[in-house]
């Protein structure tokens, strides 16, 4: 098994095919989208491939150390330029192909007009543990 991170972006990913923002959908379209997402996670739990999923607030701050005895420096939020992660899902699957397949399904979540959003999701493999058998 191998773990993959599926990243959803508020900003920073290429534009989706169906990019109408959510607050311009109809209430029913919103409902259908939420149900699709919930069903997807439930189904992955059922297949034993779901690990974790979380959503992030859009606001964030960069922070760095500023030397002994000084408070950390903060900067931002960089409202217009920063790549903004909206949330993630971690899956544990048999193969890269399976990870691609699942990311594709998640990207097909319905949006405006009930049509798939075709949203770009970022798929990132975890760095795993060194194997026991090396020869």
């Amino acid at each position, binding site marked *: 098994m191998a773990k993959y991170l599926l990243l959803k972006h508020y900003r920073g990913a290429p534009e989706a095919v169906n990019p109408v923002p959510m607050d*311009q*959908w109809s*209430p029913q*379209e*919103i409902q259908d989208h*939420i149900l699709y997402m919930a069903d997807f996670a439930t189904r992955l739990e059922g297949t034993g491939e779901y690990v974790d999923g979380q959503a992030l*607030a859009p606001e964030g701050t960069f922070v760095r150390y500023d030397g002994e005895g000084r408070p950390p420096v903060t900067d931002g939020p960089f409202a217009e330029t920063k790549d903004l992660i909206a949330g993630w899902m971690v899956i544990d699957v048999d193969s890269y192909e399976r990870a691609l397949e699942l990311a594709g399904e998640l990207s097909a979540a319905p949006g405006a007009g009930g049509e798939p959003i075709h949203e770009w999701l970022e798929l990132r493999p975890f760095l795993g543990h060194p194997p026991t058998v090396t020869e």
Partner: protein
Amino acid sequence: MSRAGVVDEALLRELTPAVIGVLVRRGADFATAEDAVQEALVQATVTWPDRRPADPKGWLVTVAWRKFLDAHRSEVSRREREQRVEAEPPPGPAASADDTLRLFFLCAHPSLTPTSAAALTLRAVGGLTTAQIAQAYLVPEATMAQRISRAKRTVAGVRFDQPGDPATVRRVLYLVFNEGYTGDVDLAAEAIRLTRQLASRAYAEETAGLLALMLLHHARRPARTRPDGSLVPLAEQDRSRWDTSLIAEGVAVLQAALGRDRLGEFQAQAAIAALHADAPRAEETDWVQIVGWYDELLRLTASPVVALNRAIAVGEADGPAAGLAALAAVDPGLPRYSAASAYLHEKAGDLPTAARLYADAARSAPNLAERHHLTRQAARIGQVLRG
């Protein structure tokens, strides 16, 4: 002995603080005693389904004491000391004093952070296992185990018989209640059980107020979410699904407390919840009285969050213009400010502003359920505007 089939978890949780108290009175230190009782609880869940002891408390005391001795033996290297401890347990002070109450104070000790105090209270007073507490707070079990053992080290020097401050215990229980329901452990129900215990052992008007507040909010739970998990706002809840026996109890507890004329913030909050509970339909809500209670709350706490909620109540009592005027005095940076403003603008008939503010509010919502709810509000108004 009787066959029980499943372990009576409620009984185990009920007995936990008393059993810890017995061990401490026999001379065990709190941290080791608490560990020993936790191990005994785990053993009970394994063996009781086959053979439930006739005297569950006696069984737990015996097993926990044995675990304590084992732990003590492994710590003490010299046989001499071992023998001294293994002799008849020292009688300790008379067991008449209330061990559970003392545990409440110890677990909510001001030297602990609120998070640690909540975890320790759930384990030592609530009798939950570390795994259950970890699951309820969505953290790994090892993390929760560390949090609890650090908390125990922090209070290691506190004397068990010191009197404590019920206000700190109330704050911890309020925090636990607000975590609600995330796993197979119902933290809201657990907080109510513990607050009941606290109120019955050391009555205080504010403890009663907290209990009433919890009961009145818990009563609405069946109506608060749809089967798909989405939020139903108070005004749209199916009030026939509110739990009338919890409401009746909450109102009675609150009236008894208010009758003693020592008002505090929990009583005032409970009074607001009671007025909502009293309205058979949302339109029949007595908003004028609710505003009066918000005025009391503001006087007691000077909290900006209270000022925000008061503005909405004013909007219901005196119309949206008055509500927006009250809102103008509130810090716009507060969480849920945009949502309150959106609501009042919609009532005032300014739909484009309301739609924009609902969309803003959705972006800054502190959880997904609220975000979805606010996005739907924006969408609903957007649909009207597009005709």
